[in-house]
């Protein structure tokens, strides 16, 4: 297992406990979506995996070792625009390498590859303020994968995009992780997004947070998203998950 949460307890100050004995396993190369209503604690789980939060009790293991401090072996991408506005696209994408003291020549090669991977080669010398929303997302994606982390932690990364751009980004994300073999922990409240992307969906709800349902999806990484949308199985899954989410809300 790449990421393991064992009997994790967590609560915010002055609030009811969010996690009481929560378990979670994510295997190498697995794409897991956490689906649940807003504010249920999905992002808390993600931030525990990122090491931004510490559990009150229980264990968070990453790559077979107990996680202490920040999880620097993960890529992290949120809904927010976390590009540094005073750096060009090239420098933004290269920042993780620079912070990790990767030698200059190696850095240049990796940046070039990443820029081409997400189709930003033409825009490499632009500042974030000159980019469209979709280009910013692509730059953020490139930045979170450039140091080849074994796992991507994503918190509604495409939440602020229009429908068409989301479809493009979904395909690009699938292509990218298909090529690199990275695991993904993907937080979303969008049912169709979770079906389209994930190998396994965990429907979350309740307080303390529980896994209401675990859904395995067998389409694999090289799935054709357009075909899936027309698949009756997709519709059936969507209906089932919608009912589950409705139950989680009440």
């Amino acid at each position, binding site marked *: 297992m790449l990421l393991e949460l064992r009997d994790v307890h967590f609560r915010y100050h002055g609030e009811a406990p969010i996690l009481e004995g929560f378990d979670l396993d994510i295997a190498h190369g697995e794409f897991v979506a956490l689906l649940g209503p807003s504010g249920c604690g999905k992002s808390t789980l993600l931030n525990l995996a990122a090491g*931004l939060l510490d559990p009150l009790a229980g264990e968070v293991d990453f790559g077979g070792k107990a996680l202490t401090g920040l999880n620097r072996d993960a890529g*992290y991408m*949120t809904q927010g625009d976390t590009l540094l*506005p005073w750096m060009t696209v090239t420098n933004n994408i290269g920042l993780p390498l620079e912070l990790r003291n990767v030698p200059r020549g190696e850095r240049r090669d990796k940046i070039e590859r990443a820029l081409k991977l997400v189709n930003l080669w033409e825009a490499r010398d632009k500042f974030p303020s000159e980019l469209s929303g979709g280009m910013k997302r692509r730059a953020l994606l490139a930045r979170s994968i450039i140091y080849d982390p074994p796992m991507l932690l994503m918190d509604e990364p495409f939440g602020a995009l229009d429908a068409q751009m989301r479809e493009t980004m979904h395909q690009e994300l699938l292509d990218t992780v298909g090529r690199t073999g990275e695991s993904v922990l993907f937080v979303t409240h969008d049912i169709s997004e979770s079906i389209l992307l994930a190998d396994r969906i965990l429907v979350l709800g309740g307080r303390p947070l529980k896994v209401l349902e675990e859904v395995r999806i067998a389409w694999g990484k090289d799935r054709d998203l357009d075909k899936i949308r027309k698949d009756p199985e997709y519709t059936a899954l969507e209906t089932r998950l919608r009912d589950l989410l409705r139950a989680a809300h009440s």
Partner: protein
Amino acid sequence: MNMVSKIEAAAPAAPIPAAQPRRAATRPAPVRKSRLRYRLENLAWQIVLIGGFLLLWEYASDRWVPKLMVSKPSEIGAMMWKWLMDGTYLSNLWVTIQATFFGFLFGAGAGMIVGFLTGSWRRLGDILQPIVTAFYTLPRLALAPLFLLWFGLGIEFRIVFAATIVFFLVYYNTYFGVREVSRELISAVRIMGASRIQVMTRVIIPSALVWVAAGLKISVPYALVGVVVAEMLASDKGMGFLLSRSASQFSASGSFAAIAGLLVVALIVDWIITKITDRALRWKTVAEQK
């Protein structure tokens, strides 16, 4: 772009502590005439307006308004020429600029240091911020007699007086600039592998710089105001002294000549500071320019 910053420079800076550095990206007007032509036309209009005003002034003086009160552009011009030639401008301006420079330097330096400390160290900020605000609400002019008592009539008094004005403007901008830095941004950069010091140098300081630059820009004219007021209160040198001496001798042309000298200095200083901050904030303006 240049025009926007010129308009901004000409407009009186609002005395709000937290200035808004985020200027909405404005789309240029649809093209009907070339930009150069548009600017030349504007320039022509400006010359016509100012020239007309001066002519009216020249004509009205001594006819509609007593000359003792308003003098005449021609006499003011003659006075300015005389001061330019006999070194009155040079010696007094030099004194004023020196005091403004050091007042700005000390005030802005202290404001930035205290702002960074209180902004990035939350506990310290929560303790100190209300105290600083209390001092901010105090009219700075009320401190003048005390400063006079401590520092005497010399340049120290003028520097300290200007510095106290500049300090608060820069402090507030720095403090809010540091606090405004998004948590999400810091988390993202830390996971990428940044140490605490790298977060400070790579994220917090550059983010806050927009605000600091805005604070610096609006505080330069205030430094000049502080020095001139201090010179008018108690000094035997400087443009403020020249101004109050001329007025007390009922020399309206002298007063206007002193004001004109100050105007030129203020414009030059503002132009320099705009050049410097624009350069530092190129990443912000690059999208607006297109």
